[in-house]
């Protein structure tokens, strides 16, 4: 049997956690960067690095805006990101099934 290929962008513990968290957000919602950082208990620098990789892959959309004078960054999974996460979950399930 051929093993399903795992998406290398998602197949890293930290990014998988980021994507799983963003996937819990209802479609059409964005979460502020500090809130996401808080949910994941990651450092801002670490989270930024992973978000950039996810953004480059087209999985995450980052919106920079202002509230008054303070810049606020919002993060959301793109449709493609949601799909990739779904496919990744299916692949992982298949692998677990294959192991048993």
């Amino acid at each position, binding site marked *: 049997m051929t093993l399903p290929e795992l998406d290398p962008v998602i197949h890293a*513990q930290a990014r998988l956690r980021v994507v*799983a968290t963003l*996937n*819990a*957000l209802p479609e059409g*919602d964005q979460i*502020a960067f500090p809130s996401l950082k808080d*949910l994941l208990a990651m450092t801002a620098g670490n989270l930024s690095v992973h978000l950039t990789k996810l953004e480059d892959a087209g999985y995450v959309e980052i919106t920079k805006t202002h509230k008054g004078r303070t810049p606020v960054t919002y993060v959301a999974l793109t449709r493609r990101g949601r799909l990739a996460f779904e496919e990744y*979950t299916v692949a992982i*399930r298949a692998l677990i099934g294959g192991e048993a």
Partner: protein
Amino acid sequence: MDDEDLSPAEMMRLIEEQSAAATRRLQPDPLLLYAPWGVAWMAGFGTFFLAHGLDGRPLAPISWQLALAVLMGGQLLAGAFLFWCARASGLKTRGVTTQRGMMYGYAWFVAMMAMGLILSRFAPMIPRDEVSLLYAAVSMLVVATLYMAGGAVWREWPMFFLGVWTAVVDAAGAALGPGWHALLISLLVGGAFLVTGIVLRRRR
């Protein structure tokens, strides 16, 4: 931190744990959502019942002004508590959910204000004894309707059924009179909100 060594089973567990943790933080705590209203109505309508009795003879020396103060104060406290909890959760999101919540919040405010204005025209025309029932019954009808609508908006069956239940008890109580209405709302509606909050929290 890029541990590529995790087994598929471990990755799956990571997905499940992280999704569950995020969902728990993103969704409001049902206990805080329902229980404060339950307590406010149990206390408020309970006091009203004691002040009025079933047949108009008070069961306790409580003025209707005091009963009204307990009811309004309790609702105000419940609302303030809910608002405070929403802010303290600390997670900032924007988009569909926020807009939905905002419109729903404004719907409460507008409906209650309009109700107050409409009823204030009719209040002087009906016996004093019935005025408090008119306000109580119509305001609980607004509550019932908005809970049914909220259930539809968020596809939350418990919320929808609480609305249905409130409408049924409200209508039955209004038919029976002021004392009965206060007693039934206090026990059956206040109690239902409290129990729903506790049960949903436990299931989480």
